[in-house]
């Protein structure tokens, strides 16, 4: 008999239908992956199982967990089951823990809520749970507070809370999305180990096909609140039927056509760049500390080249980006753009700046919500000595919008009227409008759904060829960097540890850190990659 049986589940919040006729099942010891883009209803499916839904939600259908009919149980009985029979792990480890209570206290609470044991007994069980998630007592005593831990460590604490009572089912809702790739690999390995040890069922929810495909026994693909396809993994990939699943798989492995040949002439030359910050003093008597975010970085970016810069959060890639853009002065080394310094004395060099533009990660935070699109895309004109006006300005706006696949009439609209992918197109239009030579793409596709991402990558490749653009592609996502760049640099702790031709670095990494990164990156099973390349 299966552990969790969801049949014909529908969910409405207010008048809005969120889920329609969702069916899936999880057996003990089985890992079931639920895949879908944002808004597909995958998280709401998980919350329906937990019966932790927003107010005004109405569920119908059937959810049976270890023989309990979850939809008809009273709240008190549901509380008994939550944490005991089913545990849950969430996406955002940074906010999932109560900031003012110790980790020991919070893990022990799971035990205290469900069993009549003494506090010291509960704390001993908490210790045991933390040991199981590889947070050893010597470095992570029970008295630690969440703010003293890193994201990955916090996620381990959340997992410890969820598995402290060895529940029959664990639900993990995007458990690694907020984490770096090496941390992600560790957390995924931990989850797999716990499933194996406890014979626990795992319902794993993710937007990332590769993350799920790598570990799941069965896969459920969701779109717009419905299950479009389900089947055993990885066999399912060779026999996908639904057009949505097929296009999802194609988009996950999509490689845009790129035909530009870089010219052997350095457009951007970075030499021994050092960027240090002062940090607040630790005690009254000590001197203010200095932290080097970038420690002597050198590289060249050729004209027409797409250069990747990969690294995990905190490695200094954002700091380096700001230095290249001339937003912050560097403490050592030099940055030359076409032979001219980015910083002229202590001021940014406008002549250079107008030839570089940037596209940021967050399609929602990148635009002033009070301005219309025409004003938004015209912002870089400020860098010109003579601001285009009248028909010249209109023509420039129209050209920029058309080249990113939008209509010139979109200039009259406000930013909130656009979807995430469209906003990213507008961000690219804003970068294009003053016809730069170099565009820095700072995690520019990281926040996008996989299909939209594939479209934006195609657009970037196309624009690069049409306008002879060079790209500096900054990302934590190795799979994206691999398909869009000619050369790649790997950054760690403020230094570039390896650089070379992209394909060469990926197939034959030399530096141990690069090897570690590439090994940690989730990859679609061979069968899925083959299926994708056949379509």
């Amino acid at each position, binding site marked *: 008999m299966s552990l969790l049986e969801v049949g014909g589940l529908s969910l409405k919040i207010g008048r809005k239908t969120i889920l329609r006729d969702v069916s899936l099942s999880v057996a003990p010891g089985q890992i079931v992956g639920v895949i879908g883009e944002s808004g597909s209803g995958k998280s709401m499916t998980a919350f329906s199982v937990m019966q932790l839904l927003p107010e005004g939600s109405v569920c119908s259908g059937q959810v049976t967990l270890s023989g309990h009919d979850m939809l008809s149980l009273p709240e008190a009985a549901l509380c008994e089951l939550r944490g005991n029979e089913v545990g849950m792990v969430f996406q955002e480890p940074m906010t999932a823990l109560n900031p003012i209570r110790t980790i020991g206290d919070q893990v022990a609470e799971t035990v205290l809520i469900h069993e009549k044991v003494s506090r010291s007994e509960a704390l001993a069980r908490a210790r045991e749970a933390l040991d199981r998630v590889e947070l050893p007592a010597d470095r992570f005593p029970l008295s630690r507070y969440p703010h003293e831990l890193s994201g990955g460590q916090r996620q381990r604490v959340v997992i410890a809370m969820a598995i402290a009572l060895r529940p029959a089912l664990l639900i993990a809702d995007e458990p690694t999305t907020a984490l770096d790739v090496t941390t992600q690999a560790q957390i995924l390995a931990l989850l797999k180990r716990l499933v194996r040890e406890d014979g626990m069922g795992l319902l794993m929810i993710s937007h990332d096909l590769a993350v799920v495909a790598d570990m799941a026994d069965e896969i459920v693909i969701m779109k717009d609140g419905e299950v479009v396809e389900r089947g055993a993994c990885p066999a399912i990939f060779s026999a996908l039927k639904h057009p949505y699943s097929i296009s999802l798989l194609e988009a996950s492995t999509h490689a845009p056509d790129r035909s530009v040949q870089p010219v052997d002439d350095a457009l951007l030359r970075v030499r021994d760049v050092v960027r240090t910050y002062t940090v607040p003093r630790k005690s009254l008597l000590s001197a203010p500390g200095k932290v080097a975010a970038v420690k002597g970085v050198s590289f060249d970016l050729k004209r027409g080249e797409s250069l990747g810069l990969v690294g995990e959060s905190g490695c200094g890639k954002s700091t380096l980006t700001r230095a290249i853009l001339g937003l912050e002065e560097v403490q050592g080394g030099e940055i030359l753009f076409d032979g001219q310094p980015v910083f002229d004395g202590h001021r940014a060099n406008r002549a250079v700046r107008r030839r570089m533009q940037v596209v*940021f990660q967050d399609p929602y*935070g*990148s*635009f002033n919500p*009070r301005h219309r699109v025409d004003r938004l895309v015209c912002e870089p*004109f400020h860098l010109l000595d003579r601001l285009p006006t009248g028909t010249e300005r209109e023509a420039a706006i129209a050209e920029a919008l058309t080249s990113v696949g939008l209509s010139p009439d979109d200039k009259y609209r406000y930013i909130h009227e656009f979807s995430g992918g469209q906003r990213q197109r507008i961000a690219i239009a804003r970068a294009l409008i003053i016809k730069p030579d170099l565009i820095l793409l700072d995690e520019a596709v990281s926040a996008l759904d996989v299909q939209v991402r594939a479209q934006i990558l195609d657009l970037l490749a196309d624009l690069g060829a049409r306008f002879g653009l060079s790209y500096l592609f900054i990302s934590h996502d190795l799979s994206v960097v691999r398909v869009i760049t000619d050369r790649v640099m790997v950054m760690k702790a403020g230094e570039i540890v390896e650089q070379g031709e992209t394909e060469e670095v990926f197939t034959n990494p030399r530096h141990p850190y690069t090897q570690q990164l590439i090994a940690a990156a989730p990859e679609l099973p061979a069968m899925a990659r083959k299926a994708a390349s056949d379509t």
Partner: protein
Amino acid sequence: MTDLRADSLPPEGAPVRLWHRALRSRNFVIGAVLTLVFVLAALVSFVWTPFDVTGLDIANKIKPPSARNPLGTDHFGRDILSMIMVGARVSIAVAVVAVGIGMSFGVPLGLWAAARKGSLLDEVIMRGNDLVFAFPSLVIAIMITAIFGASAVNAIIAIGIFNIPVFARLTRSGALSLWQRDYILAARVAGKGSARISVEHILPNVTNLLIVQGTIQFSLGILAEAGLSYVGLGAQPPTPSWGRMLAESQTMISFAPHMALFPGLAILLTVLGLNLMGDGLRDLFDPKLRGRS
């Protein structure tokens, strides 16, 4: 109450739609109507009042509400309705100017401090704010009156000074969260300086916060003015003011409660109207906070 959520998002949608939604918000409509009634009363009082408020009419003194005097008369026989209409002028004027002082000094200081976050300037501005907060508003008023004498103008200055740190803090915290946004970075990449960014990108996106806080400070200003004139530190006779009407009624409260009731109700309803309007505006500007406070 005095502090708004600074990280609230800027509004979505065109101004026209906002106005339509406003008219459907119960809080906003009730609040706006109440506020409008008192503003109109103050404006009408310049051209017409039922009775003259400067003349004495001892024959008709301390009369309870009647057809002739709907709210009764005071101990000099003056019509209380007329007094309340004229008194609204002082209350509104004091509150408007005090909010104006608070905004015109506080907002630039807050923008400036946020643009130079962590610098000595930021520190000086914020410590200065803390210092003003250390003087309760009434104590500032008392000091000013002790030095310069009691008058409506001094009351305005006293209340206005206290408004400066309120707006400076609000602007700074709102601006700080906006400075983190990528569109500010985009503006810097476009070569814009921090002064220009503050005016072009930050200020328009904190105006909602300022409008809501403005209505709250407006209502607090009316309460403060009433308190000051009650203890004789506000507008001086013969200018009628709600606070002094209450002070004068106090000795007669046992046999003429109407003299205390109506000026007090006027204050209560005006402040209530402004607060409801502020709540309504906040809900409109920031739907995710709806019903929170």
